[in-house]
């Protein structure tokens, strides 16, 4: 669906990585801000944002020009995350996309197609972890790469995690070996508004920008509760309390409202016909660009998705009240250990819950976590998502879903394996605004595919083959030199290949 274009969407459309489609898929959750006046796209003048934003998204690295052969995975149990399961089933990947998926052996094999006999194996979409700090808090933990939290101001909305992301982080390869193909990489939670996150597609590149997931919308990391107030209490400045947190957030959005209004006014003036005295439009200087306010104004317009770190039920309710006050939507609460207490509200509001399977107790606001959280949110009709927030847990995301599935079933929640698979694929794809591209095994979607040794809901399951855009990025049978330059000559004998 094509949506009315506004000045803010202009530069999204101008960006290399975006399309009308990705903007459209973001829109429906976002109420138009009340101050806005729709105008035909053609009458909007060029503005300094458009070229600036486009340049802020264009990688200097050339995209790969060679595409590998088509791949047909057959004789497997194919779990699609659409509610359909094919056993035996096949997946055909061609030109970066899933060409076909279904029951049986698949279409006649064309010359040059690589055929993978996955008898006894399970096939799923690539897993998506919407909450990661890999790359911005890489391993090893060093002062030199401590780039995840800009703890100099509680509101740093103008930052981009992309600019801290170290593509040589050795943990990235291990995540892929766990079947993960896409990450939402976020700034840390030390700030109330930490900055823009970035959706990363996990094929190795030398620069961060080239790893951006094509067409993914921008996302914003926010944090409520303990972390920001703890950080700034130590720094002896505001905020040091929850009320201090909320004041700072409201003030930031008040400024963003004014900023958006100033740009709207200027834009409207540009569209007016020349005055009777012959004064031409466009002579007023545009307002100064402000990276932080620009980001927040885009949130108000619904063009940037809000990913809000929040644990307690009361903190989430307060956050939703603030969002309503300013007219923006929360895409997902992250961590959200008490989501089960307000799952009806979250389902009604269409806010996703990205959380762990059973973490709890590491701080006061995490004290009420229970293993049934994901199941209960699902039962209430909410959108539940497994996230890791950890370079260790990301390697066994599938086990997290398996444990939450088991906990839910014991509690009497009716869940099938596809529900749990959606916690790992389709639902996080929605959280990151890329559900039109990945998250299910359907013809036309990007060919992000994992072949598992057994059901991904077994502790013993290992990802054997991982494809991103139809290209094999991991093959357990042929683990070669490490991706990361850092690990060259470090991870020594015996062979890097894990023990069988």
């Amino acid at each position, binding site marked *: 669906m094509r949506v009315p274009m506004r000045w803010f969407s202009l530069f999204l459309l101008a960006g290399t990585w975006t399309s009308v489609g990705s903007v459209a898929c973001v829109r429906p959750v976002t109420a138009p801000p009340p101050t806005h006046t729709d105008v035909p796209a053609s009458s909007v003048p060029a503005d300094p944002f458009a070229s600036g934003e486009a340049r802020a998204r264009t990688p200097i690295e050339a995209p790969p020009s060679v595409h590998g052969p088509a791949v047909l995975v057959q004789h497997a149990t194919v779990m699609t995350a659409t509610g359909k399961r094919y056993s035996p089933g096949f997946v055909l990947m061609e030109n970066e996309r899933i060409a076909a998926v279904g029951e049986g052996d698949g279409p006649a094999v064309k010359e040059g197609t690589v055929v993978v006999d996955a008898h006894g194996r399970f096939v799923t979409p690539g897993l998506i972890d919407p909450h990661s700090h890999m790359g911005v808090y890489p*391993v*090893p*933990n*060093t002062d030199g790469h401590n780039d995840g939290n800009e703890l100099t101001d509680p509101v740093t909305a103008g930052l981009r995690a992309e600019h801290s992301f170290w593509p040589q982080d*050795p*943990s990235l390869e*291990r995540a892929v070996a766990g079947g993960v193909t896409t990450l939402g990489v976020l700034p840390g939670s030390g700030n109330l508004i930490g900055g823009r996150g970035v959706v990363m597609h996990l094929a190795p590149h030398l620069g961060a920008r080239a790893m951006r997931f094509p067409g993914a919308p921008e996302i914003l990391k926010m944090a409520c509760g*303990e972390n920001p107030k703890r950080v700034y209490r130590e720094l002896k400045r505001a905020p040091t309390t929850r009320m201090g947190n909320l004041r700072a957030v409201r003030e930031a959005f008040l400024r963003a409202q004014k900023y958006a209004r100033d740009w709207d006014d200027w834009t409207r003036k540009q569209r007016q016909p020349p005055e009777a005295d012959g004064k031409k439009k466009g002579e007023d200087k545009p307002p100064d660009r402000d990276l932080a306010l620009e980001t927040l104004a885009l949130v108000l317009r619904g063009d940037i998705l809000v990913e809000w770190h929040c644990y307690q039920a009361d903190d989430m309710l307060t956050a939703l009240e603030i969002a309503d006050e300013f007219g923006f939507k929360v895409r997902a609460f992250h961590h959200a250990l008490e989501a*089960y*207490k307000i*799952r*009806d509200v979250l389902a009604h509001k269409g806010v996703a819950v990205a959380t762990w399977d*059973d*973490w*709890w*107790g*590491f*701080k*006061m606001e*995490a*004290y*009420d*976590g*229970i*293993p*049934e959280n994901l199941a*209960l949110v699902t039962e*209430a009709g909410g959108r539940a998502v497994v996230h890791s927030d950890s*370079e*260790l847990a990301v*390697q*066994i995301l599938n*086990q997290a879903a*398996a*444990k939450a*599935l*088991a906990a839910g079933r*014991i*509690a009497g929640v009716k869940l099938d394996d596809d529900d749990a698979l959606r916690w790992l694929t389709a639902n996080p794809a929605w959280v990151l605004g890329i559900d039109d591209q990945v998250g299910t095994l359907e013809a036309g979607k990007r060919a992000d595919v994992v072949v598992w040794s057994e059901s991904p*809901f*077994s*502790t*013993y*399951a*290992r990802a054997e083959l991982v494809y991103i855009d139809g290209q094999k990025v991991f093959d357990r049978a042929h683990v070669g030199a490490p991706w990361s330059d850092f*690990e060259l000559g*470090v*991870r*020594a004998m*015996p062979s890097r290949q*894990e*023990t*069988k």
Partner: protein
Amino acid sequence: MRRAFRLPGLGTLLAALLAAPAGRAEEPPAVAIVHARVYVPGDHPPLEDGTVLLAGGKVLAVGTGLAIPANARTIDARGKVVTAGFIDAGTQVGVVEIDGERASDDTHAHTPITPGLRMMDAYNPRSVVVPITRAGGVTSVVVAPSQGMLGGQSTFVDLAGDSVAEAVVKSSLAQHAHVDDRTVESTTGTRGGLWFELREALQDARFYAAHRAAYDANGVRQLSLHREDLEALVPVVRGEQPLVVWAERASDIETALRLADELKLKLVLAGAGEAWMVADEIARHKVPVIIDPLEDLPSRFDRLHARSDNAALLSRAGVHVVLSTFAGQQARLLWQRAGNAVRLGMDHDEAIRAVTEAPADAFGLKGYGRLERGAVGNVVVWSGDPLEASTHVEHVFIRGREESLETRQTLLLQRYRTLPFVHDGSR
């Protein structure tokens, strides 16, 4: 060998036990868990259709085709699995409620050299973490100081009992020395300096042990530690109490082995991310190694060679491998650590031993970690393979008594199982 698990003279023993006087009413009732797959000690494969008899707080018998005492409570465990209660050899259970709240965190002293510190004195058997851990099939834990060059003495507890006295099995189990990057920073600032200080402390303890009278008469040279700390190290330097060295880097592990040779210490290694690189050396020294098999990242400079198959490689080299969560609140997930060790190449039954017999043997805990006659009645009934994610714990017995699986978390679930929750005191 199967007959080994039958109990000769069972009838006599049973009669004696069951005829116990009424005055012992506090003793748990006899229990027969029948038709289960039962994991028995050693390399023996699990018994199929096995029976485990509990009475008087102990394992009375384990075997197939055993006679069931008439008054025993019978649990039909067909299709289910019975193991000894899991033992986590490196936890902070009961010494931290909420990590982020310092007031509830008693995991370590805030100075690096406190060998006299006893974790028993901090252990809280009423912690909400205790029932949560137990509900994960863990019946006993080593509660160890989480930091410190000589961080203090761990304690070994059963996750039951209404008092410290009841819970504690061995008050002073082992001394714990952390020699990782963090400890280096909090002590001398260099690795060599840390080992120097550690060696000096142990040698001073040796000297002290040999010159106690002179020490008390103020007749000895100045020593690096206070009397209480020296006293605490005496069993260590006599080789009676294990010294658990928490080291990651292979070279630190080598240094620990050297030091143990030199001072004749009873060494246990923990952490040990790079242990696989010196596996043969560790095996030769017959030193047990406690590891978390999910810790596979080069997260610090002292574990750049960390690998996901550390457990499998060590086990294959003949090292005595113990698996642990190294956790407080999440020690309940010991089964998952063992399961992942299997995923990453370790033998399945060996992984089960690595959370039952192996920790017990590493610390000389007689009667623990084994389902055999006379063992402590710490037994878990699992709905299936204990290491599978879809399995849940059905029964936990500690010292022969069934423990409730209710936790603060199950109460929260109950309270919010249906919405809206209105507080009227009913749930």
